[in-house]
């Protein structure tokens, strides 16, 4: 019925053993698609685990090239990849891991002209972007197209993650109404980040996407989880749909996508 061949059954056997997944869940994953925005610190573990898990189709968006300073945390890329397009390097690594997964790469910058079309082609989107212009753009596009979004961020020794389902809970703007002032927020490039934290948060994002696709467990909708690595503590903040939200509130002011190019000057090339 689920027509997995012998190799696939063996490859996914530890999933299939799980009551909550089973052959049926594994088949669901194979039918699913996830768009990973950014093939960097967060996108690396996210894509790695989703491809290993056998999600049928993974899209990866990035326009950047691999830099030596990326390799401390961006585990999709290797020393020999420095200078290559991140999408090419990512595709090669991921195809070597699991040839059963379709990897579609978009070596392009996200903008108002392409983002809605892209996100709406996937079951769920995972945010691993390095600048707030793209972060708000992805949030807005997901709200407009009703596409769920696993949101994640990291800085220094901390990270945060939440699941945005526009049909059910708050969006990013409900909690962070406006993009920060240009230059006010330090990027990882300026402030630093412990590389392994990208792994912690990215792995949480991948797990939440898989839970969402399988429909198992407690959803992360309406919960912002904050990870403090130095204390080794996780804290949960309840977040709610904000009736004043300029995007998904009672009287939305934002009715079409806006470009926030002014805000990315400082955070680019992170």
């Amino acid at each position: 019925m689920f027509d997995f061949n012998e190799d696939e059954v063996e490859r996914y056997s530890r999933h299939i053993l799980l009551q909550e997944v089973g052959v049926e869940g594994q088949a669901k994953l194979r039918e699913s698609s996830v768009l990973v925005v950014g093939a960097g610190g967060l996108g690396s573990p996210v894509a790695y685990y989703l491809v290993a898990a056998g999600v049928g189709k993974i899209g990866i968006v990035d326009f950047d090239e691999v830099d030596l300073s990326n390799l401390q945390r961006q585990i999709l890329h290797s020393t020999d990849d420095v200078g290559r397009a991140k999408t090419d390097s990512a595709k090669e690594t991921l195809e070597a891991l699991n040839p059963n997964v379709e990897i579609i790469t978009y070596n392009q910058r996200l903008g108002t002209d392409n983002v809605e079309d892209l996100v709406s082609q996937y079951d769920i989107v995972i945010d691993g972007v390095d600048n707030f212009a793209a972060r708000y753009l992805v949030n807005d596009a997901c709200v407009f197209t009703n596409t769920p979004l696993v949101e994640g961020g990291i800085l220094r020794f901390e990270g945060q993650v939440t699941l945005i389902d526009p049909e059910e809970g708050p969006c990013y703007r409900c909690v962070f109404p406006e993009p920060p002032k240009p230059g006010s927020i330090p990027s990882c490039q300026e402030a630093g980040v412990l590389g392994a934290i990208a792994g912690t948060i990215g792995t949480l994002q991948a797990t939440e996407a898989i839970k969402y696709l399988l429909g198992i467990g407690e959803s992360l909708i309406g919960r912002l989880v904050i990870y403090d690595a130095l204390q080794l503590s996780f804290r949960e903040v309840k977040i709610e749909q904000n009736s004043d939200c300029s995007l998904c509130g009672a009287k939305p002011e934002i009715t079409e996508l806006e470009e926030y190019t002014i805000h990315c000057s400082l955070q680019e090339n992170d």
Partner: protein
Amino acid sequence: MELVVNGEKHETETSNLLELLEEFDVNPDLVSLKVNEQVVNKDRIEVTELSDGDEVEMLFFMGGGN
């Protein structure tokens, strides 16, 4: 009075949100602020008064995916 700030009890003299941020040495540009269930608009920080028992969350902007 006693507040709960970022999940922990905090004894303070001030009842003003901006002053509380100064007490924590937090730049208002770096955070989104929640008092109890309500997200506080940027232009309201200075005029937001706190009461005993209020729960304040300072939620930091975090980017840094790449």
